[in-house]
């Protein structure tokens, strides 16, 4: 039977994929085709730019930007065993229609191991997960000793996908060796990095894989209870995880004496209440306990004294979703993927000024160029590539010189960035790097919990300096102050938030120092972003006195009569740039 897989990820839902699904359902039933085609509402396919998307098996024909009114024609073609050309993906450079998903450039270089079920199975149906080898890894694991499971994970080389990249097997081993009456497994789904959404997509698209990863981790360290700490801003993920938990309980994959073994395990969901710092493991535990989410000093580490003072192991969603994959394919085979010290794949959220936004899972060691230009289709609107910000507010930026750098945990650290959770924001020449650093810092400062002084006060001072610079009041000494204060905060902060908050400043200072200097010395923002440094001027020889600029100016700063070159009154101008956009003769310039 052929399957019609409609994407039900958050991106496609906002493009009305639910209506497309319902229209398909009606049309199939109207034509009596239910026996021929199985309709499924799946998790995220990753290619959000082209949503709503539909995949039709067995040939994997990939249809983009499908609207409800396309449905009759689509079904008509499918019924005849044909392909509906109109909705196939069009390769923008060659204008060629591409027949199957794996030939679409966005998917070609991907290696979808962890995302293998996303977009394929119905996330609200456990049978779908079971039929794609679901819970097989758990069955395998229950026949092993916990120490053997930990050894497998160590051999696989899996490292934490949430930020720091700590070896997962070693972390489990610490928690295993702690002696206590109770231990906890915590799944960190508090994905707060602006620009990252892989954990949301995984939880929405393959929730049972996350549960299976937690079960295996629980068995390995000797825990009976698990918590999923998830953002309340992800209602669909919460719903699908809750459904998955109920289904797993009903089938005996959660509860007592699992699958005839002596292993008991239960999972609860805790919804976050909106605090970025709760992505930090000790702050997260405080929050589960009902307190303000403030980090604790370490040691003692969570593996010794975590949630309710019991040994706890905390991994993020993507890390846990890797676990069943490793147990299924075998740790040695898994370890063949990737680079020497970074094994397996990584999911990147590709956003910003790039043609193909979406989620892409690639083997570690792929180059930035391949991700941005082959998968991402290059910079949008034909503009010039400037930099990518990797790792969100904790990360740094990489420039053209890094395009051929193989991406892994260690190469990124060396370049002054970090993997973080895998947000990759592409920037073009119209992005101001100083303003970008200011933006990230205002985020980190706002989210600082206030417990330790370096983070609370230090980041506030850094922000004040940056604010001065983008307003045109900076001085050259400010650049040295940013550097030394930033380094200081990194060394002395209590938790990961403060220890990484200055990274965006330090890396932009390193790679774009000239841009900072232009802001300070020449009072110029080369990208044309920092409003206080902009001024607009009409070039009299080009002005045709059409009056468009005058009409569109919101502050009535432009004067001029017919057949007379127009003028901008600088004292009234709000630097919004509308006039420049509207001018059909390119007569207005920014200086």
């Amino acid at each position: 039977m052929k399957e019609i897989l409609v994407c039900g990820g958050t991106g496609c839902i906002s493009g009305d994929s639910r209506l497309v699904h319902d229209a398909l359902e009606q049309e199939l039933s109207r034509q009596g085709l239910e026996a021929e085609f199985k309709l499924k509402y799946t998790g995220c396919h990753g290619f959000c730019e082209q949503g709503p998307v539909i995949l039709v098996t067995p040939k994997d024909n990939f249809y983009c930007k499908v609207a409800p009114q396309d449905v009759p024609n689509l079904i008509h073609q499918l019924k005849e065993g044909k392909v509906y050309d109109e909705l196939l993906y069009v390769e923008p450079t060659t204008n060629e229609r591409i027949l199957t998903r794996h030939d679409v450039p966005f998917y070609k270089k991907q290696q979808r191991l962890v995302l293998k079920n996303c977009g394929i199975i119905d996330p609200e149906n456990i049978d779908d997960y079971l039929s794609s080898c679901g819970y097989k890894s758990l069955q395998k694991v229950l026949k092993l000793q916990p120490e053997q499971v930990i050894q497998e994970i160590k051999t696989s080389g899996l490292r934490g996908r949430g930020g720091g990249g700590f070896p997962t097997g070693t972390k489990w081993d610490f928690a295993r060796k702690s002696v206590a009456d109770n231990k906890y497994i915590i799944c960190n789904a508090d994905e707060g990095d602006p620009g990252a959404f892989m954990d949301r997509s995984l939880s929405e698209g393959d929730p049972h894989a996350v549960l299976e990863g937690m079960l295996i981790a629980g068995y390995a360290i000797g825990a009976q209870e698990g918590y999923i700490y998830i953002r309340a801003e992800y209602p669909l993920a919460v719903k699908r995880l809750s459904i998955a938990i109920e289904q797993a309980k009903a089938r005996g994959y959660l509860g007592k004496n699992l699958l005839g073994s002596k292993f008991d395990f239960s999972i609860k969901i805790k919804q976050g209440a909106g605090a970025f710092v709760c992505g930090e493991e000790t702050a997260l535990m405080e929050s589960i306990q009902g307190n303000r989410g403030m980090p604790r000093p370490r040691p003692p580490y969570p593996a010794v004294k975590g949630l309710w003072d019991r040994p706890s192991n905390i991994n993020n969603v993507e890390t846990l979703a890797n676990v069943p994959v490793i147990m299924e394919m075998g740790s040695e085979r898994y370890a063949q993927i990737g680079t020497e010290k970074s094994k397996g794949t990584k999911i990147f959220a590709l956003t910003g000024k790039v043609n193909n936004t979406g989620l892409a899972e690639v083997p570690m060691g792929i180059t930035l160029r391949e991700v941005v230009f082959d998968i991402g289709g290059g910079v949008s609107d034909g503009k010039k590539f400037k930099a990518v910000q990797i790792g969100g507010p904790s990360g740094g930026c990489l420039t053209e010189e890094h395009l051929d750098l193989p991406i892994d945990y260690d190469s990124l650290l060396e370049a002054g960035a970090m993997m973080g959770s895998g947000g990759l924001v592409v920037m073009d020449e119209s992005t101001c790097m100083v303003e970008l650093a200011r933006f990230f810092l205002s985020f980190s400062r706002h989210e600082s919990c206030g417990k330790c002084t370096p983070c609370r006060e230090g980041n506030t001072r850094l922000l004040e300096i940056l604010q001065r610079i983008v307003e045109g009041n900076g001085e050259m000494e400010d650049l040295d102050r940013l550097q030394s204060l930033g380094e200081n905060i990194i060394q002395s902060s209590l938790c990961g938030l403060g220890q990484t908050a200055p990274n965006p400043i330090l890396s932009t200072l390193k790679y774009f120092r000239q841009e900072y200097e232009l802001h300070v010395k020449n009072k110029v923002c080369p990208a044309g972003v920092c409003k206080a440094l902009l001024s607009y001027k009409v070039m009299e020889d080009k002005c045709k006195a059409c009056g468009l600029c005058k009409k569109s100016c919101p502050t009535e700063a432009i004067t001029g009569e017919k057949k007379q070159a127009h003028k901008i009154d600088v004292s009234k101008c709000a630097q919004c740039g509308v006039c420049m956009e509207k001018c059909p003769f390119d007569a207005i310039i920014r200086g």
Partner: protein
Amino acid sequence: MEDISKLIDKYRGSHGGLIPLLQEAQDQAGYLSRETLEQIAEGMKLSLAKVLGVTTFYSQFHLKPRGKNIIRICMGTACHVRGGASIMAKLEEELGIKTGETTKDLEFTLESVACIGACGLAPVMSINDDIHGKLTPEKIPEILAKYRRQEAV
């Protein structure tokens, strides 16, 4: 008020029950009034300072009444580089309020959030549970009108 005591009974003595209790209490009234917080503190045998401390730590909790429609405009990185600020300016202009405020008729509350996680559609905002993506300032009046109409129906 009676409902609050039922909620308190549900969470009393439970490990870490304060935050889910506050979440459910807020779901009922849309915000957490001083009286509600006092009742929760007493019922949970916690000091009011502790309850207020937790409440003000998390951005999800509100101490003032809020609009029927909650607009959250995303200020995440992807939205930032794709012009999120101009969307915000347009919303403030259309609604006649600043970010963080509620319209006088209690129809709309305008908030900014760090990231909605729909970066592929930047710039985005959410109104209640709906996500609106690929926004331009021109699209804003039409979208707001849709929610105003829903009110009228």
